[in-house]
């Protein structure tokens, strides 16, 4: 029964080789990168025997390790950015990141809203920017393998600071694209520090070509100081060949209102992780998402909501529509520490299976150490309601349209909850993702 020494898979060996080649040229402290890589080297790619990765077996899915992408020529980057449609109808300050590198010529750096200061992550790493000390605010995220790999390889991104008391009206839009015919890997790190009493809306969109097995690994870290108000809307439009890892961390102070919504449509494989910690009292956090999958696509959303401070409220709502032979995964853990009395946490995951080949795996967890709390979770999965379909069809609506209507309203609940009801344009921008997917479904 002796423990056997782990043998690297060819992909793990290839990743190690990429790291050996890249660490000398990547900006910043090489020692920190070594430490992060050691974490990966020790554990290897996560597989189904690793509880948090039970349903997304990277070891068996990742057959190749793509090399880290070099910066693109400006023309190529601009062409790729033009092809990315997300949030086009929303007026925003754009920050363009192509193949993992900031494209200054396609970004509104000269035109940033008042109170917003920005530097690229590459510059910040090279100059040892003091704000970088705020990275890794959530220890549970730092232990995560996707995050560790990002820490080892991170090449660029942006470091944003929103000055105290500033109400930023214009959203900041982070536009990520990956282009090229051969598969590349990217590792971007974005840090957003919102100072006391400030408010800001962040948009994040991702695009990569279909049929190419690009391997993006994105991390966005948000530090919300006291009395801030932050909305984060994300569209994951990675192509059907992509194997995308993404991590969002949100460290919330006191009296914070934080909301994040993630729309996932048609990626080859995606794992989106959210780590949210309530470190101050009387904060409210909402984590929501809608996932649309077909063919043999696979999407995994994994949450860790950690209530450390008392009197906070968290709401999680996730909807998944599955067609073809797709697999949906939802793992959500709400932890309530002994001190976090009067916590109110409610988590819901609902899935609709549209074909017999689809699979849904739900794992909503509660981990409670405080006695005066109200926590609940619910999970459902099933097919579309026959009665509702019949009702619509009896009114002359053909079956495909009736199905589309029902699916749209099912997914739309997440957008309804996350977006201010007066913000018509934002609702359209997000629901557009669902409509495009439904139209393609036919």
């Amino acid at each position, binding site marked *: *029964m002796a423990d056997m020494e782990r043998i690297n898979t060819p992909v793990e060996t290839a990743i190690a080789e990429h790291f050996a080649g890249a660490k000398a040229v990547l900006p910043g402290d090489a020692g920190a990168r070594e430490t992060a890589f050691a974490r990966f080297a020790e554990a290897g790619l996560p597989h189904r025997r690793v*509880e948090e990765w039970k349903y997304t077996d990277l070891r068996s899915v990742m057959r190749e390790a793509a090399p880290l992408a070099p910066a693109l020529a400006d023309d190529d980057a601009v062409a790729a950015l033009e092809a990315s449609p997300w949030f086009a109808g929303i007026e925003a300050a754009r920050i363009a990141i192509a193949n993992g590198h900031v494209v200054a010529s396609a970004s509104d750096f000269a035109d940033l809203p008042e109170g917003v200061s920005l530097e690229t992550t590459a510059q910040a790493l090279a100059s040892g920017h003091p704000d970088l000390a705020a990275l890794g605010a959530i220890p549970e995220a730092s232990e995560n393998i996707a995050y560790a790999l990002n820490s080892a390889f991170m090449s660029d991104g942006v470091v944003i600071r929103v000055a105290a008391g500033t109400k930023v009206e214009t959203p900041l839009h982070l536009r990520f694209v990956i282009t090229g015919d051969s598969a590349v890997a990217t590792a971007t790190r974005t840090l957003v520090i919102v100072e006391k009493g400030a408010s800001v809306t962040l948009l994040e969109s991702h695009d990569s070509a279909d049929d190419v097995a690009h391997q993006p690994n994105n991390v966005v870290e948000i530090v919300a100081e006291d009395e801030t108000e932050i909305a984060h809307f994300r569209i994951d439009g990675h192509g059907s060949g992509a194997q995308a890892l993404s991590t969002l961390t949100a460290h919330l102070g006191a009296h914070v209102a934080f909301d994040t919504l993630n729309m996932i449509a048609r990626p080859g494989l995606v794992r989106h992780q959210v780590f949210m910690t309530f470190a101050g009292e009387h904060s409210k956090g909402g984590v929501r998402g809608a996932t649309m999958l077909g063919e043999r696509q696979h999407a995994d959303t994994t949450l860790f909501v950690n209530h450390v401070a008392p009197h906070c409220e968290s709401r999680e709502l996730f909807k998944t529509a599955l067609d073809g032979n797709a697999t949906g995964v939802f793992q959500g853990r709400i932890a309530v520490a*002994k001190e976090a*009395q009067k916590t109110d946490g409610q988590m819901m995951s609902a*899935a609709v*299976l*549209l*074909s*017999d080949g*689809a*699979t*849904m*795996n*739900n*794992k*909503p*967890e*509660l*981990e*409670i*150490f*405080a*006695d*005066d*709390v*109200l*926590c*609940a*979770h*619910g*999970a*459902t*999965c*099933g*097919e579309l309601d026959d009665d509702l379909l019949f009702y619509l069809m009896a009114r002359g609506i053909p079956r495909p349209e009736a199905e589309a209507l029902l699916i749209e309203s099912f997914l739309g609940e997440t957008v309804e909850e996350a977006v201010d009801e007066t913000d018509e344009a934002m609702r359209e921008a997000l629901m557009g993702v669902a409509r495009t997917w439904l139209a393609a479904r036919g």
Partner: protein
Amino acid sequence: MPAVQETIDRVKEIDVDQYKYGFETIIEMEKAPKGLNEDIIRFISAKKNEPEWMLEWRLDAYRRWLTMQEPDWARVNYPKIDFNDLYYYAAPKSNEAPKSLDEVDPEILKTYEKLGIPLREQEMLAGIAPENRVAVDAVFDSVSVATTFKKELAEAGVIFCSISEAVHEHPELVKKYLGTVVPKSDNFYASLNSAVFTDGSFVYVPPGVRCPMELSTYFRINEKETGQFERTLIIADKGSYVSYLEGCTAPQRDENQLHAAVVELVALDDAEIKYSTVQNWYPGDAQGKGGIYNFVTKRGDCRGKNSIITWTQVETGSAITWKYPSCILRGDGSRGEFYSIAVSNGRQQIDSGTKMIHLGKNTTSRIISKGISAGHSENTYRGLVSAHRKASGARNFTNCDSLLIGNNCGAHTVPYIESKNASARFEHEATTSKISDEQLFYVMQRGLDEEEAVALIVNGFVKDVLQKLPMEFAVEAQKLISISLEGSVG
């Protein structure tokens, strides 16, 4: 609510020392040498006078066990068990196959009397209506000491005996079903059990027979440094019905003792099995010293169409509980149910739940789980509901609620819900809360003191599960709950 008042009275009369089954029976025992190896297994097999095939089966399980690792995924912490520092066989010395109760050591009879389990049929009959009688198989450490009402059951065609007896008397049935629900290599503790199991109950209900009385097994661990490994096999043939109760206690000791049981249920077409457990092993003292490690594999196989298996459990004892009574819903239209109350207090750790595996068409399952944590305990519900590709029309409803009393304990819920069939419909809900001040205030305002008020509210909380218990058990279970919660208020 008379039952509730009774519960409250019961709480009051309990001493600070809560565990009332902690006494020890002083009796001369015969033990196998300490440790585990093939010779010990041969020794056990020889003691039981087993045929060759049974020994081979055990040895095969043992060899598989050697290649396995102790599972560490459950949310329980305990020092590593030295499996070579245990006695795997302990039997009362006088117990050379007693022909009747008269030959059973009077000390053992007294033990069971003290536990409230009369083994003399005439005593049992006193004041009990015939339809409420219960047949008992009493297992003392490694051996079955008595089985009651055998004759009457035999007239109905029901076989109810210890599993060692079944190996001799009904080898064809044992060979056909043993290990078919929980295979030898199923998991670490099941493999260990397959290698060294010493006794347990065997039930076979022939086609179309409704078992005329409740069957019951009472497990007692008595000897020091001894593990108890019992194995229960229940087969309900086509169209039959059986209800089976299981109870367990152990003396109060400073050391931890291991209990690794395997229970296999097989329900053929249209058969129904009700399996109820009141688990009250010694939980250890307030500092977490001593107590039983309860690592149990229980699984029911709804092999035939329209078969039903119901698990009902009240878990109040054991230092550590690791137990997931499951149903494999293989037959079309079969049904699995799981009702559980898990109460943890002191330093107890419970990681328990169920698995409902939907394989057949139109299979249904229901899970109601109530966890109550008090003191410094940890209470985890862990459950799996899965629908395979062919399980069209599968339905599941799961409700697990947790209640925390005091803020030094933990309550956790870890459900796994996996669906591979579009027409399967699964619903899961879970809540965690404390007894609200409003509820307490409302009840106390009507003149109950705090402890009585908590008992009343907790009884309401677990009512759904208690209603599913057979009559005799429901009363006992209510008492147990009140005992486990004693001292947790304030």
